[in-house]
């Protein structure tokens, strides 16, 4: 089957089905893009489902089998430098934020419970007005995202 033009393939990784639904609902309500979702229940499941069609990742931290940070690091270690990784997690301490952004290679950090506004701030810079994913200069994104991640936390 042919994929509809403009659909952004997003993976939502969370061991809570309720939270996966909440993330999907929030993203659909924001209308920054037309998403098509792939769900995974932990890092191990996500790694098995991950492929080069996935364009953006929304990842919980605290999950059985493989944590979100371990999954994010595995994705980066496979050479996926450009894919935006958004941590959506209950972990709030600065040490955790630092670990996710630096060790895991995450771009953004959204703390639960999240609001639509918080999610919008985290992802809006990654999409243009037509809902297309923007892939910009890596270094620039990296430094900008670090500060955004802190602000969003």
């Amino acid at each position, binding site marked *: 089957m042919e994929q509809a033009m403009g659909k952004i393939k997003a993976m939502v990784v969370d*061991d*809570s*089905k*309720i*939270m996966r*639904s*909440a993330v999907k*609902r929030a993203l659909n309500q924001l209308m920054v893009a037309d998403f098509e979702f792939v769900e995974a229940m932990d890092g191990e499941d996500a790694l098995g489902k991950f492929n080069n069609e996935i364009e953006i990742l929304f990842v919980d931290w*605290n*999950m*059985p089998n493989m944590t979100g940070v371990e999954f994010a690091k595995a994705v980066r270690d496979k050479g996926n430098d450009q894919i935006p990784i958004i941590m959506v*997690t*209950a*972990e*709030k*301490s600065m040490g*955790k934020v630092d670990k996710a952004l630096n060790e895991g290679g995450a771009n953004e950090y959204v*703390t*639960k*419970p999240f609001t639509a506004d918080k999610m919008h701030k985290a992802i809006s810079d990654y999409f243009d007005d037509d809902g297309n994913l923007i892939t910009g200069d890596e270094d620039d994104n990296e430094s900008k995202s670090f500060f955004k991640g802190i602000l969003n936390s």
Partner: protein
Amino acid sequence: MNLDNLYELNQIPEEMIGKVRESVMNTFGSMTGEVPSYIENASSDDPLNGIVGNVTVFNSDHTLSLMLAIPRETAVYLSEVFIGMELPFESDDMGDLIGEISNILAGDVAANVEKVGFRGQSSLPTAMRGSDLMLFMPNKPPTEKMKFSSPNMEFWLTMVLSESK
């Protein structure tokens, strides 16, 4: 805060209780838009008809266990606010929801108690549903039971501080 002599403690340090209380109010306030009030001297040994969400914040020395006791009516209300629809109380999704709420609370507690010197990480949450539930603490570790209430919610949090085994 010094936890070196935990064996000699018969209660949880007040600053730690204060931070956990603050986290409960912050977390439920953020989730529902109504900040629950802490009800002083409201300890009750009545059995619970509802759900208990369990989670811990732990390090190699100490474990802070958090048990959220949520009556059926509050659990149903939380589902309505959190996901926009009432979940059947008996459903697996309700257990998932209360587990996730416990997880969110633990994240806030972990960040908050770090400010008074307790650095730990949160465990995965569990939830159990039942009627006539009573919480028992083997070996009587330092325990604090707190009641919270708002117009649409009523729940208890029992926190227990113990040695990590």
